[in-house]
């Protein structure tokens, strides 16, 4: 187990390292683009050259990368945003709260709903219940997040006025004190999530139901309820851990769109508005952050999977 832990952690560190090279590389493929974006309308060759020198963009790429990595690792310094006039790291800390709030709530409710739905489908396999849920999950899975979000907004805020349209949610405090504003964004993400998760839960349950230990338990006289919830469900939950780890990027990406639709100023809207005004430092920072979160997520998922399922080969 210890060897596996070390190996898997090292692998993640290497992955993060490659991600940092990739994002840095993308940003610096066209150093002129950065300078041009910063100067905007005041662009002229002389100013551009001065700024290039000032930012150190005229030095070899590997030195720039080393300096950037040094500042990032030892000072958590991701550079300066010239549109927000703030440090990128401060910007991220300010906007992180409301994004984590949405993603966390969505993940919680997605699991809360999809586990019972999956169990229901597996126990009522090939009945009307199963087919109905399957059809809805196919639709929920295929409908793009932004379309679903706009439809929900149209229904609940414009047509029936069930939820008031509020001013922008700009901080974690806003998000926490106006829970009614969180209903639709979270619902948008949960509907898409449940569609996918309940399918996995269904097949995980079906995989376990056919195992020998289930037959043994039934032969020993255990009740159906006990077998189903005491044995099958517990084992079927294990693959779900991996799924949560793997679906983090989708969830984070979805949260970005949901923020845009429901006017919540979090990491997503920060990234979008920075990208629209060529503020690459911010985009680089948030991209790197989400990538690291994803890598950590799948690391935690893999380790808990190995810890919970003794059958997993630790190679």
């Amino acid at each position, binding site marked *: 187990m210890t060897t596996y832990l070390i190996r898997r952690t090292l692998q993640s560190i290497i992955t993060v390292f490659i991600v940092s090279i990739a994002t840095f590389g993308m940003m610096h493929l066209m150093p002129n683009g950065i300078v041009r974006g910063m100067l905007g309308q005041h662009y002229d060759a002389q100013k551009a050259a001065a700024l290039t020198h000032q930012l150190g963009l005229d030095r070899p790429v590997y030195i720039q990368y080393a300096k950037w990595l040094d500042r990032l690792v030892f000072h958590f310094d991701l550079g300066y945003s010239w549109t927000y006039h703030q440090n990128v790291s401060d910007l991220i800390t300010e906007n992180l709260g409301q994004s984590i709030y949405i993603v966390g709530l969505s993940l919680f409710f997605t699991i809360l709903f999809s586990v019972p739905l999956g169990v229901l489908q597996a126990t009522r396999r090939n009945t009307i219940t199963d087919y109905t849920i399957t059809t809805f999950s196919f639709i929920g899975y*295929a409908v793009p997040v932004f379309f679903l979000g706009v439809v929900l907004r149209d229904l609940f805020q414009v047509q029936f006025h069930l939820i008031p349209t509020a001013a922008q949610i700009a901080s974690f405090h806003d998000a926490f004190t106006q829970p009614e504003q969180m209903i639709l964004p979270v619902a948008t993400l949960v509907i898409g999530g449940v569609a996918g998760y309940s399918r996995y839960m269904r097949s995980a349950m079906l995989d376990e139901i056919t195992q020998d230990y289930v037959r043994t338990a039934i032969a020993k006289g255990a009740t159906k309820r006990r077998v189903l919830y005491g044995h099958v469900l517990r084992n079927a939950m294990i693959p779900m851990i991996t799924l949560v780890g793997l679906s983090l990027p989708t969830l984070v*990406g979805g949260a970005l769109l949901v923020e*845009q639709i429901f006017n919540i100023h979090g990491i997503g809207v920060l*990234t*979008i508005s920075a990208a629209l005004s060529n503020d690459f430092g911010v*985009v680089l920072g948030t991209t790197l952050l*989400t*990538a690291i979160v994803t890598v950590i997520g799948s690391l935690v998922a893999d380790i808990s999977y190995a810890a919970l399922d003794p059958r997993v080969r630790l190679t």
Partner: protein
Amino acid sequence: MDEIIAESPAAGEDVPSAEQMLGLEPTEKPRSMFRRGLEVFLENRLAVVAFGVLVLYLVLCFLGPLVYHGNTSHVQMDEITLPPGPSHPLGTDQNGVDELGKLMKAGQISLEIGIASGVLASVIGMLYGAIAGYVGGWIDAVMMRAIDALLSIPLIFGLIYLASTVGRTKTVFIMVIALTSWFSLTRLTRGDTLTIKVRDYVAACRMMGGRSPRIIFRHILPNTIGTTIVNTSLSIANSVFALSVLSYIGLGLQAPNDDWGGMFANGSSYLDQNYWWMIYPPGVSIVLIIISCNFIGDALRDAFETRLQKR
């Protein structure tokens, strides 16, 4: 479990009789993979309907403008935000532009970019996977680790990043979307390649002096084509989605050349005014194309995936 049961040949079906095997009776000519695949595909009603929807949209967007001449180019202030009516079947937008004409024009862009980048992603993914799997060793390990790293960047962040740094033209979007969506096929093709490259016919080919490119292109890739075909269909759906996401957040193609995502974004900014005809036609078009491609992909998987082949 279903699949395992389904895979075992049904009794009495397609099993050659003793006479046939001894050559006393002429055996039926074996049906080609595509012929067989087509039969399985046509049995799936849902997929046939989905295919019909896709064809309808292609006809509407590419042939429609030849028949229907709506104003899609100039501002007409006396005709702004008209609801659907006889002169404008889908109404007009805030500039008095005919929505049906715009839907066709935007559809051309969505479908062109979607299909082109879907196909491109499949080609990249197939080649990368086959090469990584065939070469093996540390090169394979490095190639796959690189994919792990790229996969951990959420797709949308990668897209925003590339679209905002590289610039925005049709070609760029095709490349950008293709470059961010070939990873899953690569893993599948690599897996197939690992099992194919140890087969006897590959060894035989190598013994007869067949070089690596020949083995990859003539022996390995044709055997993984089923996976690729399935994936292409899913990848087109993903590309249409990715493009519409980019347009929705304002990083897509610019206004006169926008796609369905751009139309949808424009419409949904008038949500409070209740101009539903500006929101739902492009939105539903995106959803229909994505659902259709997914259903077609599922049916193609039943038809062409050799691992799941029923007959």
